């Protein structure tokens, strides 16, 4: 009897194990697959669900599969610099320009893909009174949080969102520090959850905020700053193929060309409409 239980268990393990590895270990099943590119990207493109939504179409259209490594924009560019990724989809314009200038990109450089915007979110109580006093003024919102020393969760991970946050502090000539300023070193979704638990404020990209909205008790306290300070531009960069011999040049190029194509741009424009009532990203390839 006990042997039987053991045998059944073993069979179960085997079936599950082989069921799992069959599709992943034998990609040759579909003859048109050309290979796999490593896409290093920000947490927002993945946590919002955008990549899951569009990547199957990319594979169907080009025959390239994509391994998505979702990290902050800073780490994604470090991966590009080290030649560990083939193509990047990031949102940290200043750092991207420096990346291209340093020769880490291929000749196409930085290709604009889409944009959305950042929002300042906080608890319903809004202890710093941002909603009432700052309105659409992002700098005013940061100023109010700073002056009232209300908990603010910073990404603290060198991501695009973190870079944007730092640029706002710099524009205000403020240096946030102290108990109230929490440097989380975590992804966007995790930081929103942390802001929810600590009843703090944070700067989030709209896409990740929408994806996380229902599991928090937070609200937008500042958005749509007319000065454009909250704009969030995403760009695609192919890594310089001279980094090492393993970079999938054709796959990276195929991805870059596809993401700015009419079909992909249309997919981006429709993503989120069904679930959130409005698109999460606005395509703006040139």
């Amino acid at each position, binding site marked *: 009897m*006990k042997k039987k*239980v*053991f045998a059944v*268990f073993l069979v179960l*393990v085997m079936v*599950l*194990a*082989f*069921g*799992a*590895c069959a*599709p*992943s*270990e034998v990609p040759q099943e579909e003859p048109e697959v050309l290979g796999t590119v*490593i896409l290093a990207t920000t*947490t927002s493109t993945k*946590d919002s669900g955008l990549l*899951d939504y569009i990547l199957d179409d990319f594979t169907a259209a080009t025959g390239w599969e994509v*391994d*998505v*490594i*979702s990290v902050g924009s800073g780490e994604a560019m470090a991966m590009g610099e*080290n*030649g*560990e990724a083939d193509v990047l989809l990031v949102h940290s314009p200043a750092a991207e320009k420096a990346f291209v200038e340093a020769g880490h990109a291929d000749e196409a450089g930085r290709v604009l893909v889409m944009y959305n915007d950042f929002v300042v979110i906080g608890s319903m109580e809004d202890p710093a009174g941002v909603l009432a006093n700052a309105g659409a003024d992002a700098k005013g919102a940061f100023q109010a949080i700073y002056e009232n020393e209300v908990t603010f969760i910073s990404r603290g991970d060198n991501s695009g969102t973190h870079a944007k946050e730092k640029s706002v502090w710099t524009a205000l000539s403020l240096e946030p520090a102290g108990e109230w300023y929490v440097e989380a070193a*975590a*992804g966007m*979704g*995790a930081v*929103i*959850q942390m802001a929810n638990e600590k009843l703090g404020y944070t700067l989030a990209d709209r896409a990740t905020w929408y*994806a*996380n909205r*229902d*599991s*928090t008790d937070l609200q937008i306290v500042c958005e749509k700053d007319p000065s454009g300070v909250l704009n969030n531009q995403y760009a695609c960069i192919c890594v310089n193929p001279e980094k*090492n011999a*393993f970079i999938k040049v054709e796959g990276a190029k195929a991805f870059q060309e596809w993401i700015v194509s009419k079909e992909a741009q249309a997919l981006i424009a429709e993503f989120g409409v069904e679930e959130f009532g409005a698109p999460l990203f606005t395509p703006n390839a040139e």
Partner: protein
Amino acid sequence: MNEIAQGVQEAMGLIFAGDPEIFEIVGLSLFVSTLSVAISTAMGIPLGVLLGTHQFRGKGIIVRITYTFMSLPPVIAGLFVFLILMRRGPLGHLQLNYTPTAMIIAQVCLVTPIIMGLTYNLVKEKAPTIRRLAITLGAQGSSVLWLMIYEMRVGLTTALVSGFGRAISEVGAVMIVGGNIKGKTRVMTTYITELKTMGDYSRAIAVGIILLIIAFLITTVLYNFQERESR
């Protein structure tokens, strides 16, 4: 509280509805951990037996290093394997990062010291008696080794299950070298981490429950084996 109740409910749904994505993730978890433990066993048990039955210079330091590595943080193992396997690293030409193979290598680094250390302890305690018995029975050379392993099978099973527990439950190493790629290197623990950061608590709980059920099944098998063998 609501989240937990919802999670339990969703777990039942996922298990009985046969959600293919969940099956794939659970399957990969089992595949990676089972293979890691198998490789670690093949290395750890002979090494542990050798260490336990032989006296040589520097044995003390090897034992202490083994004990230290028994509590090696998974992220360190992950980072180490990642650096070795990265494109610019010494084994970069194999292009193994972000594959299940890399995950298995990292887990072998974690599990081998556990199995080796526990085997060593067992051997240190029981070897003299078993060896005397073996020699009395007329065994020689490698058959002494096999007899020892056979006589210690109950204790060794515990070592294997400790190793398996470590492998199936760790997240640090498989996250670094696997990258949590959907449909390719996503296992239960990295999936739970991702679900948590995305605020999908109920599904995270559901996957957690499946993980616990698997642990329970494995413990049950061990328990039955030990009960039968020690009777």
